[in-house]
């Protein structure tokens, strides 16, 4: 198994956000997790990145390695897992170029970094034009591009994406998802969480449904798109 999660539980103080959820991702796949506001989607990704601690008894294994033994920076550098966080979280006081450079902080393979940078600029030519602009002054769409580009530089085996569609006009959204498809075609496995269930299920091969911190359904995207409960709750009838 490429990536597996078993009985993952997470709490914020006394509030339990995830209840023993289990799921897995195969190499090269695009998998999505859909769910309403507050279902625990972002929390799931934060737990994988070790930004929030998991309860005792939770298990997460990536390519045979115990992910819960690593601090967050090592999840990126040793396992190759990158994370585009909710709300993008760019360093708004740094330029586009600096944001991208910072993402290569721990890497020493200079030639490969340059190749990855060139790749990012091929996918998002707009970023190249804005190299010396402070990222805080980019438009929402440009910010999303930079957030994805930055993640690609930091690590490119397995990418966690938290609501990449948020705040984007339909046309831009299509651009971003085309870019994500391209990134996946080049070998990056993707775990996507989305409130926009239709979009996510059209993009992914498989999906999971999270409800109040519980994994309640799983299946191929087609199965979920056809599922009457999913239709009723997440696809607007």
């Amino acid at each position, binding site marked *: 198994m490429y990536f597996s999660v078993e009985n993952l539980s997470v709490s914020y103080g006394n509030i339990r956000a995830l209840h023993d959820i289990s799921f897995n991702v195969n190499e090269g796949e695009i998998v999505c997790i859909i769910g309403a506001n507050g279902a625990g989607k*972002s929390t799931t990704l934060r737990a994988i990145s070790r930004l929030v601690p998991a309860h005792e008894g939770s298990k997460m294994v990536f390519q045979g390695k115990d992910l819960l033994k690593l601090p967050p*920076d090592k999840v990126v550098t040793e396992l190759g897992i990158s994370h585009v966080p909710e709300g993008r979280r760019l360093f708004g006081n*740094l330029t586009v170029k600096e944001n991208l450079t910072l993402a290569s902080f721990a890497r020493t393979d200079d030639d490969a970094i340059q190749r990855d940078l060139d790749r990012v600029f091929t996918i998002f030519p707009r970023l190249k034009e804005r190299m010396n602009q402070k990222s805080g002054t980019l438009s929402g769409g440009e910010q999303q591009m930079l957030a994805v580009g930055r993640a690609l530089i930091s690590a490119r085996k397995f990418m966690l994406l938290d609501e990449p569609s948020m705040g984007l006009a339909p046309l831009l959204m299509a651009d971003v998802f085309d870019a994500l498809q391209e990134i996946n075609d080049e070998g990056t496995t993707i775990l996507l969480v989305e409130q926009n269930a239709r979009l996510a299920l059209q993009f992914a091969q498989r999906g999971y449904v999270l409800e109040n911190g519980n994994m309640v359904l799983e299946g191929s995207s087609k199965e979920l798109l056809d599922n009457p409960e999913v239709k009723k709750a997440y696809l607007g009838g």
Partner: protein
Amino acid sequence: MDVFLQQLMNALQWGSFYALIAIGYSMVYGVLMLFNFAHGDIFMVGAYIGFFVSSGLLALNLGSVIGLSTGVELGLVLVLTLIISMLLNSIVGMGVERIGYRPLREAPRASAAITGLMIGIILETANLALLGPQRRSFPELIPTTTITIAGASVTNKKILIVIVSLVLALLVHQFVQRTKWGMAMRAMAYDYVVVPLMGISSDRIALMTFAIGSALAAAAGILFGIAYPVLDPNMGILFGWKAFVAAILGGRGSILGAALAGFLLGFIEIFVTMIFPSTMRNLIAFGIILIILTFRPHGFFGEPFSAQLRL
């Protein structure tokens, strides 16, 4: 004119101490959103480390051992004292971060501030307990000579102190602006939480921030010892508070801002005492700073954002 020039040098020297200490305050505040109220006492520890290192080096008698003239020997001792003490004090600073502050990363900022005050008191009283209440006199590393420039007499010490301070301030500024570690510090100042997603250990960046600030504080301590060769365990308290004010005035996380504000504070204090009775020094100095902050609430170079500390 000559009186003015002379006082200008005094102000620059006095401001040098504030500037070097303020930079460390400002960096920690910038990167970790933390007022490190122990920083004045880290300056005091740095001065004492400088005292012991220089006394030790002088006792080695390098001059007669490897055949150096007295002048060269003293110069060598001064340079070695600066380097060794800055290194040792950076270890002290990292210890304070690791033991005192790291367990409180998620705690309310007020708890961390109180911790700083307590660490400061611990450093002062530990010094008192270990070394006793008597003051120490800093060894004379530079024999004083007086130079006359444009009718004003200036000592070689003052010139050296000001130059060393300016060079150190500029070096740290370049480090923060140009290196990837500096970039990581600036990123952390903006959004603390997601820095690890870039593959960067935020604990390491925190340690590095304390190390640099403490090294500058040690330099300040040694330069102070050269100018005013009397050390006592409480010497860091007032300096600490004033440098803290300079750090805020300079703007959160701004190295040049902190340095500039430190020198400004030095100027105000020296020139106020030139005109008014010295009892009015702090009254007028802090009055002026209050007025500046009213018009520039983020300080000279502070950017109007505060750090993102939560998910």
